[in-house]
């Protein structure tokens, strides 16, 4: 039995490899100093989607991302790794969205896709680190959700059994389809880009990209429908403009501060049994360990 799988992915600034000045003086992110990458947890989600696809022959993996035109890069990246289809959700009306407005736009896009059995997304993005979008999308679509998934253990046409990471351990849960899973960073890393798929799908383009004068693969795109990336605006997905973008975002950033961690006090310990024993005693007393 085949599954219709949707992966929600986000293009994020690579905060782990910041070159130059990562923050502007006004507290916003200086995107030009940071390369744009596929959000790491979303790659874990994509891998779970591809594993499900392998398990259920004939399944289809659709990746949706919301962002500016260049976010189509991560759709191509998803195709290189094994996804079947990419949808770019892009509209000025979506700009400036907080997690709530983002979740609304994504849930509208999922409604437009229509049929789905499993929606997967990363637990959180490395830029905002809120972990809110997945749960909010599930709520808006009225779906059950399993957060922090580390491994899908069983899957059938009606239910999924998954391990989720919780404080101090792992919980195994069973949930009915359709449902939404958010995937933890501890899940299997995503498979690599595949050379054959790169050679084919580097031509994949949104209608806007295909219309650009530099696009050299029109003949191939005509022959190979998989090369067409979809691009949806607010008008395509429908919805209340007041719930989108800045207008639909109750979150207002007042200020952003750079926090530099400094050791305020330090203690020097020797490797003697006595010092180690006293440190252990201290850590046990303040419940750091034990």
């Amino acid at each position, binding site marked *: 039995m085949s599954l219709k799988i949707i992966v929600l992915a986000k293009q994020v600034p690579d905060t782990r490899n910041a070159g130059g000045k990562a923050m502007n003086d006004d507290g916003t992110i200086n995107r030009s100093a940071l390369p744009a990458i596929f959000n790491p947890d979303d790659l874990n989600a994509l891998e779970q989607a591809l594993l499900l696809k392998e398990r259920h022959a004939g399944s289809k993996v659709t990746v949706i991302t919301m962002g500016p035109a260049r976010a189509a890069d991560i759709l191509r990246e998803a195709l290189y790794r094994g996804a079947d289809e990419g949808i770019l959700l892009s509209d000025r009306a979506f700009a400036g969205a907080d997690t709530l407005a983002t979740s609304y736009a994504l849930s509208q896009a999922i409604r437009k896709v229509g049929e789905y059995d499993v929606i997967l997304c990363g637990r959180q993005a490395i830029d905002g680190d809120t972990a809110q979008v997945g749960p909010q999308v599930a709520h808006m679509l009225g779906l059950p959700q399993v957060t922090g998934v580390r491994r899908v253990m069983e899957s059938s046409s009606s239910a999924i059994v998954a391990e989720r990471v919780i404080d101090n351990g792992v919980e195994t849960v069973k949930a009915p389809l359709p449902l939404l899973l958010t995937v933890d960073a501890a899940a299997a890393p995503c*498979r*690599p*880009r*595949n*050379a*054959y*798929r*790169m*050679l*084919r799908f*580097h031509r994949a383009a949104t209608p806007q990209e295909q219309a650009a004068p530099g696009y*050299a*693969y029109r*003949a*191939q795109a005509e022959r*190979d429908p998989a090369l067409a990336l979809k691009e949806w605006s607010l008008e395509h997905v429908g919805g209340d403009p007041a719930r989108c973008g800045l207008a639909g975002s109750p979150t207002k950033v007042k200020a952003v501060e750079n926090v530099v961690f400094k050791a305020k006090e330090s203690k020097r310990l020797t490797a003697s049994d006595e010092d180690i024993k006293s440190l252990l005693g201290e850590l046990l007393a303040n419940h750091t360990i034990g």
Partner: protein
Amino acid sequence: MNYYSDNDALKHYLKHPLLRRIVDMKERGYAASEEYDYAPCGFDEALLGYEQVLELVGELCADVLAPNAGRVEECGPSLNDGRVEYAPATAENLDLFRKAGLMGVSLPRRYGGLNFPVAVFTMIQELVCRADAGFGNLWGLQDCAATINSFGSDEQRERYLPMVSAGATMSMDLTEPDAGSDLQSVRLKATYDSEQGQWYLDGVKRFITNGDSDIHLVLARSEEGSVDGRGLSLFICEKSCGRVRTRRIEEKMGIHGSPTCEVVFDHAPAELCGSRRMGLIKYVMSLMNGARLGIATQSVAIAQAAYSEALAYAKERRQFGKAIIELPPVYDMTGNMKARLDAARALLYETARNVDMSYQFDELQRERPLAPEERAESKLFSKRADALTPLIKGMGSEIANLNAYDAVQVHGGSGYMRDYACERLYRDARITSIYEGTTQLQVVAAIRYATSGYYGRLIDEYLDFVPSAAAAPLYARVKALAASYAAALERVASFNSQETLDFLARRIYEMAAYCIMAALLLRDAAADEGLFLASASRFTALAEAAIAGHERYIGNFETELLTHYKQ
């Protein structure tokens, strides 16, 4: 980090004008794009594809293979009931490269391959071997499939090549306990059962890299009673037959990721590849040429890794109040490591391009007779490939050893400890000048191109350009080196003694190689001064020192002195 993005020389060689011709010939008007969704529609797209794949490999090598290399060494392969189990990290690497679609890089598309030219395959191999030379062997053995593609039957191509593209591993089972450098003494027996119409293999192979592979190419004695190379044929034998077992995995100095096996064939069913009696004289020679280019690539990769490790350490390590890279004895080493590396790489890709061109004419000839001028070009390229392959295999592997030695030296006492990668590189490098033909055997293969004057003409041809003003003095010095080489060659010829020639051959060989590498680097510098001129200058200085030494040695030599050495 990315091993491709940080390597400007590779990017330069990817843009070499001859590569365009190779790709244009290989892709035959880019017609395959109608049939295969991943085939390029023109040269620009082909080039873009190579770059994308090189970037992918560069990333996998830096992010996964290199960090895994320590674990591969610690664990190593193990033997379990006649079967080899790779170290877990090796198995992870292999799985990764299979998923990335990198197992049939140069095979034709109709057999599931990527159809990349040899020069690009070589670049990928350089990246892989830089991260883990041992894994480079397992991965690089996919190149054995080229022999089935060239000499196997249609049925064999259709059966085996798609298996390789999908990730089946290969091995070339040539060496035996009593047949190492001298493969004519191979004894493993192939018998034909005419009732069943089936060949069977019985006997033992030794020192077989990846000896528990899925598909073995086996050199065996098919002609009973024969004693020399003309009684040997090449066979294809599959692991799945269950009659090939590994008896022992060798304990080695280095390349621990690559299991070296003693393999027992117990009446193993096999298929003849090509014609009987042509095994050694035709197919293994072709197989070995590919394998030698592979080891040359591994050598350049180790030379690069050693240089990168040494440079990073020398910049970071502080002594006497400064980074040690600022000390003349240290930058003497690192600067010369880079010069040798660049020189070896220049020769490596020149060789690869000639191998490519030679293959392209072979392919063309399979489809239609060649026109006279095509025949002439075909001969030119295949001769050049044959002449350059032993030069880069021998010199490249010696350079890998020199660089690995210096990398440990730059690290000082720390380099002797297991904590730094240079210690592994030092051990890994040592085999490169031994397997697939020792440096001494490369000299044997190359010397006829020296005595016939071929290398001399090649040096002239490589120097047939007008240098820039900045390069002009260097150009004159390389010309002078060519004159020294010619004079030494003349003196050796004047002895009129085969034994003296054999004795002095290594020196002649090195002189020719130094001249050719210096000329090639200078040519590359003419295309990109910023990238190559400094290396060309440093390498010319090294070449002058080496050639002057050999010149003096040969100049003072007399045939009678041979007896002193035999004592």
